[in-house]
C-alpha cells in the first residue's frame, strides 16, 4: 500500500501508540487502542496491518487558541474508527489535517497517510457549476467513471437526479451526493465528517448499510466523525472522543455483529461515551442546570 510519509518537524520523534484518557474507566468496556477487534459487520477477521494513519504530536492553533494540542492518532489498515467530540472540539480540524489540507498544521514526529484518501466534508461542498453526476465522478479517471457514478448515485437514493444542479437538491440529498462522491473512489482511507447529519432515520439506516457494505468489500480504514453515539457504537471498531485538543477517550468496541441497541453491552458503550461527552444519559434528559453541572469527568 502506497503511503505518503511527511516529515513534520526538525525535532525527531518516533511515532507513539496512543493511550487513552488520563483515567481508565472502572467497570466500563475495556480500553483497547490499536488492538484489532473482530469485524462488526461481517463477523470475519479483519486484515489489520500496520497503522495506515499515524500522526503524532499534531498541533494546530488558530490565533491564540490551541485546537489540536500534541494530538496522537493511529489507525490500522481496515480499521473503522469513529470520532466523537463536542461542537468546536476540533474534529473537522483533525480531519483536514489528516487529509493534508491544512497547510498550517504543525507537529513534531510524522504524519503517515495512504495515498488514496477520501474526505466527505461537513458541508457537502458540491461544486455549484457541475451537475450532480459530474460532481460525483470529479477526478475519477478510469473509464466507466460515469457508470460507477450513476451506480453510486443510485445507491444513495439519487437515481434519476444525475443532471440536477447542486442547488436543486435538498440538504439531505446534497449530503448523500457528497457521500456518493467519497465512496465511489474506493479510498484506502475514508474520512467522513458527519456524513449522515442531515438524514432522516430511514435514509440514515440505508446509508449505514451502504457504508458497511462498501467497508466489507474494500476494507478501507475509516475515520468517521459523528454526533450520534449509537451510530458510533454500531459501526465502529474503536471510538475516540476528542477533548481539549487531544484524544481523551479511546474505546475499542467489542461487540458481535449484528449490533443492536437492545444488547445491554451496546447500552453500556453508549452510556460510557455519553458520559465522556458530558451527558449523563439517565436520569432522563437533564435540564440546563443539570447539564451545566455535569462535569466532563466520567468517573463522577
Amino acid at each position, binding site marked *: 500500500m502506497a503511503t505518503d510519509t511527511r516529515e513534520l518537524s526538525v525535532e525527531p520523534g518516533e511515532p507513539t501508540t496512543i493511550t487513552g484518557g488520563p483515567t481508565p474507566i472502572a467497570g466500563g468496556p475495556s480500553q483497547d487502542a490499536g488492538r484489532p477487534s473482530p469485524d462488526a459487520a461481517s463477523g470475519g477477521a479483519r486484515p489489520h496491518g500496520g497503522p495506515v494513519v499515524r500522526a503524532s504530536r499534531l498541533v494546530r492553533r488558530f490565533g491564540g487558541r490551541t485546537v489540536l494540542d500534541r494530538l496522537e492518532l493511529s489507525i490500522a489498515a481496515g480499521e473503522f474508527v469513529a470520532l466523537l467530540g463536542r461542537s468546536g472540539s476540533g474534529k473537522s480540524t483533525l480531519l*483536514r489535517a489528516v*487529509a*493534508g*489540507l491544512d497547510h498550517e498544521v504543525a507537529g513534531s514526529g510524522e504524519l503517515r497517510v495512504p495515498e*488514496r*484518501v*477520501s*474526505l466527505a*466534508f461537513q*458541508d457537502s*461542498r458540491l*461544486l*455549484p*457549476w*457541475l451537475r450532480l453526476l*459530474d460532481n460525483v465522478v*470529479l*477526478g475519477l479517471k478510469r473509464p466507466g467513471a460515469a457508470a460507477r457514478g450513476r451506480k453510486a448515485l443510485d445507491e444513495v437514493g439519487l437515481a434519476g437526479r444525475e443532471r440536477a*444542479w*447542486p*442547488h436543486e437538491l435538498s440538504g439531505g440529498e446534497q449530503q448523500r451526493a457528497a457521500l456518493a*462522491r467519497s465512496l465511489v*473512489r474506493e479510498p484506502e482511507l475514508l474520512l467522513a465528517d458527519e456524513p449522515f447529519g442531515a438524514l432522516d432515520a430511514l435514509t440514515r439506516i440505508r446509508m449505514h448499510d451502504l457504508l458497511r457494505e462498501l467497508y466489507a468489500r474494500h476494507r478501507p480504514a475509516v475515520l468517521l466523525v459523528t454526533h450520534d453515539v449509537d451510530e458510533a457504537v454500531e459501526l465502529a471498531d474503536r471510538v475516540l472522543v476528542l477533548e481539549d485538543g487531544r484524544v481523551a477517550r479511546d474505546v475499542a468496541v467489542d461487540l458481535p455483529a449484528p449490533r443492536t441497541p437492545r444488547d445491554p453491552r451496546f447500552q453500556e458503550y453508549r452510556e460510557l461515551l455519553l458520559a465522556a461527552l458530558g451527558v449523563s444519559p439517565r436520569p432522563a434528559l437533564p435540564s440546563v442546570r443539570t447539564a451545566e453541572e455535569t462535569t466532563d469527568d466520567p468517573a463522577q
Partner: protein
Amino acid sequence: MSQAIARRRLGPGRSYPYGRIAGPLLLLAVWSAAAYGGLLDPRVLSSPGKVLSTAADLIAQGRLQTNLLISLRRALLGLLFGVGAGTGLAVAAGLSRLGESLIDGTMQVKRAIPALALLPLLILWLGIGEEMKVVVIALGVAVSVYVNTYAALTGIDSRYVELAEVVGLSRAAFLRKVVVPGALPGFFIGLRLGVTASWLALIVVEQINATSGIGYMMFQAQQYAQSDVIVVGLLVYGIFGFASDALVRAVERRVLSWRRTLAN
C-alpha cells in the same frame, strides 16, 4: 388559477422582457422629441431623420457595409488574440506565485499606459500594417479580460480548492473543473469589456494607415466636418455595443445557468 405569494422582495423581481432596450429607446425618443420640438439646434446635433437619411446614403454607396465588415474583421481578430492572451496570462498569474510576480505587476503597468503612447513603439516593432492594428486591439482586449479573469480566478472559494485537492484532481483537471468554471462569471465581465474595447480601439488604429473601417470613416468625417456621418458612426457604435453585449450576456446566461443570484 394560481398566483405567487411572497414576502416583500428585496431582490429586483422578475425582469421585463426586452427590458434593457428601454433606456436606449427612451434616449432615441428624447432625441427625436428635442429635434422635432425645436429644442435641439440641428447644427449641434442633427435630427434622427437627417441621420437616418445619411445612413441610408452611406448604405446605398456601400460605404457603411464595407467599412463595417473590414472593422469587424479587425475587431474580431483582435478580440480573439486578446481574449486568448488575457485568459492565458490570468491563469498563469492566478495559479502560480511565479506567474503572479512576473505577470500581474507587469499587466498593471501595461494597463496604465495609454495606447496612444504605446503606438509609436508598436509601429516601430510591427510597422503600420494590419499586424500592428490587430495587436493594438488585442492589447486593449487582453487587459480587460485579464483584470477580470485574474480577479475572478484568485477569488475562487478556497473550499473548492480543498475539494479539488482531496479528490486528487490533476492540475489540468483542476483547471477544467474548478478554475475555469469558477472564474467564468468574471471572465464574462472581462469579455464584455473586451468586446467594447476592441471596437473602441478601432478609432485609434484606423487613423494609422487605413483607408477603410468604421474608425477611419469617423476620422474622415471629422476631418471634413461631416457631423451627420459622425452621428451615424456613433449610432453604429451604440447599436454594436448594445448588441454585442446582449449576445455575450445571452451566452453567459446559458453557460452560467447554475448560478442562483440576486438577478434571477
